[in-house]
């Protein structure tokens, strides 16, 4: 095996090339299998999936909404560091950018398979349906992915070998000086597309379970999606940082960094849960009855009983918010990590409810309850996105400086 030490950052230790190969191989195999499955879907069509005209949102849309929410840590950390000048977040900004890049590029890749006809992807920009919320989402995600690519460039250019080329380092320096502009643009784009994903439910009159009203053209879910993503982003960075630290066996950030991320997450999660609770009460009291359904009717089908609402608001919302807001609990790693895990699971559950559960429930009294289980092609494509993320992060961690404090902490 060739020695790749010269490509790694100095002063940090990484596993041997053999160990790294053993780590990368299974993920590569999973990615290859997923690409084959995605290829089947693209070549043979969406009949390879278990989605149909009635159940048009499946595993992939759930994946998209979840990873985009979890990837919000990139824009929110950038906003805190470059706009609000909170320098503590320098410790995780590079990792946050890589995570954001993985989440958004993974989501775009899954969307290309889901929408189909990837060679006509440019149609949405040239012939935009300006009446669709999803056009705004497409524009925002594409623009933000470009921003994330540009934010990723300085991290790559600081690779030990690449940084020996002065022009790369000078370009990195000049680009970094303008990073507040990119962070501002990223915040603007993220804010709007997270909101627009939620805004979709303002026009979903045919789905009384998910339909929401709000202010002017913005339904309540517009704001709830933004707030929940901003709360989940730091929790996901916290969780990934801890996980990478455990897997690599090295301290990556100073001990105060993870509780700080937890605190930010808690501060945003509490108002989200309060607003979500108010929104749910309004929906139970007026929105749903006005559409001809008593709210309890939606929870009459066994798999999606009222427990799911309780779990979403209390177990995955209020509980972690209270843990993260108490300093004593936040400073205990077990509590902190449990709370961060709950927050991330909570966001996934929320996006699941807003996609899968929404489509499974009947919309007319004589409609049946619909069930959906993804096909193996859908599942493999989903897992390919996960494998892609793990691979990009693994290579970035090995060859780039994702955690600037690691060097000092490893001495």
């Amino acid at each position, binding site marked *: 095996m060739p020695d790749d*030490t*010269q490509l790694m*950052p*100095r*002063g940090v*230790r990484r596993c041997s090339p053999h160990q790294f190969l053993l780590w990368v191989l299974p993920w590569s195999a999973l990615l290859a299998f997923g690409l084959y499955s995605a290829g089947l879907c693209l070549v043979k069509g969406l009949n390879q999936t278990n989605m149909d005209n009635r159940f048009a949102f499946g595993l992939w849309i759930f994946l998209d909404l979840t990873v985009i929410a979890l990837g919000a840590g990139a824009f929110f950390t950038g906003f805190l560091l470059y706009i609000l000048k909170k320098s503590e977040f320098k410790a995780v900004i590079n990792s946050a950018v890589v995570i954001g890049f993985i989440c958004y590029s993974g989501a775009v890749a899954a969307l290309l398979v889901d929408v189909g006809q990837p060679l006509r992807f440019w149609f949405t920009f040239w012939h*935009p349906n*300006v009446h669709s919320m999803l056009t*705004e989402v497409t*524009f*925002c995600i594409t*623009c933000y992915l*470009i*921003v994330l690519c*540009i934010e990723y460039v300085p991290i790559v250019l*600081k690779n030990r070998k690449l*940084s020996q080329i*002065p*022009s790369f*380092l*000078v*370009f*990195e*320096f*000049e*680009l*970094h*000086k*303008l990073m507040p*502009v*990119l962070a501002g*643009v990223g915040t*603007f*784009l993220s804010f709007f597309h997270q909101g627009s994903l939620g805004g979709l439910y303002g026009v979903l009159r045919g789905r009384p379970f998910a339909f929401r009203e709000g202010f002017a053209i913005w339904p309540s879910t517009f704001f709830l999606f933004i707030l929940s993503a901003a709360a989940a982003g730091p929790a996901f960075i916290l969780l990934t940082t801890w996980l990478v630290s455990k897997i690599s066996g090295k301290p990556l950030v100073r001990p105060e960094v993870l509780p700080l991320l937890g605190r930010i997450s808690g501060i945003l999660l509490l108002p989200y849960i309060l607003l979500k609770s108010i929104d749910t009460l309004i929906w139970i009291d007026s929105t749903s009855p006005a559409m001809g359904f008593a709210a309890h009717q939606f929870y009459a089908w066994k798999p999606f009983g009222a427990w799911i609402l309780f779990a979403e608001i209390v177990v995955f919302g209020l509980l972690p918010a209270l843990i993260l807001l108490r300093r004593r609990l936040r400073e205990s790693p077990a509590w902190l990590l449990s709370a961060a895990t709950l927050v991330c699971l909570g966001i996934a559950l929320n996006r699941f409810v807003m996609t899968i559960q929404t489509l499974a429930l009947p919309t007319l009294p004589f409609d049946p309850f619909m069930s959906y289980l993804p096909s193996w092609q859908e599942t493999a494509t989903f897992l390919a996105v996960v494998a892609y993320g793990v691979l990009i992060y693994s290579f970035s961690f090995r060859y780039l*400086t994702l955690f*600037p404090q690691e*060097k*000092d902490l490893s*001495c």
Partner: protein
Amino acid sequence: MLSHIIFLGLFYAVLAVVSATVAVSLFRSAQDFRARRAEAICWQETFPDLPARERVCRHEFTGELQHLICDQAFECRTCQTHAALLAKHPPGAGEADIFGLNFPLDRFYHRGHAWAHPEPDGTVTVGLDPLGARLVAEPEAIALPAVGAHIETNGAAWHVRKRGAVVRILSPLDGEVVATGGAQNGWYLKVRPEGGRLDARNLLRGAEIRPWIAREMERLHSALAPANQAPTMADGGVPMDDIAAGYPDADWDAVCAEIFLEP
């Protein structure tokens, strides 16, 4: 129709802003090269990547300040704290023999282990201090700049390869190279300083040298210690002429990076 134009205009404006940001960065980079700022920028960019122990302020060595990490990339010429402390306590004469190494007091020392000696003809001779010289003793290769080349303070002055590790030696001054030497000459470069005279405010001298070298020896011992073992220090004696020969198992790239301030 108007709302459509606003909607699309907004997003194409975002793309325009992003493209303009990249274009401005490229334009400014080209300007930096034209204005010979590239070396200084490279140093500024990599300086924060050095471990904190390598970025300690020179006034911490002398006990004037405590726990201060330099945030000026060792650019003491523009540092107000340095100017104030220097006016208050100019460094004393000091001594030349430090841990058995000879540091002549007629010259100035850069934190990256180069020295600068002003000559009567207005040029400045640049060499490697005794500790640096022992680390790269009998190098495999030396790459000196061409006569007429411009070097910048904290930029790469020349490169040395030792046991596979390529080390760049930082320049102690700005100026034009007028002659090149080598290890056998006892000096590496003769430089005509920019502005006609050596601005030595960023360089160490006199009584500052001993506490600095004491700290450097500590760092060297740490760098030479095997992984996961505490550094052990020799009880007496002086450093070998070729330190690398005494540590065949050491990661020489890491050792040189530590001492020559390469992130």
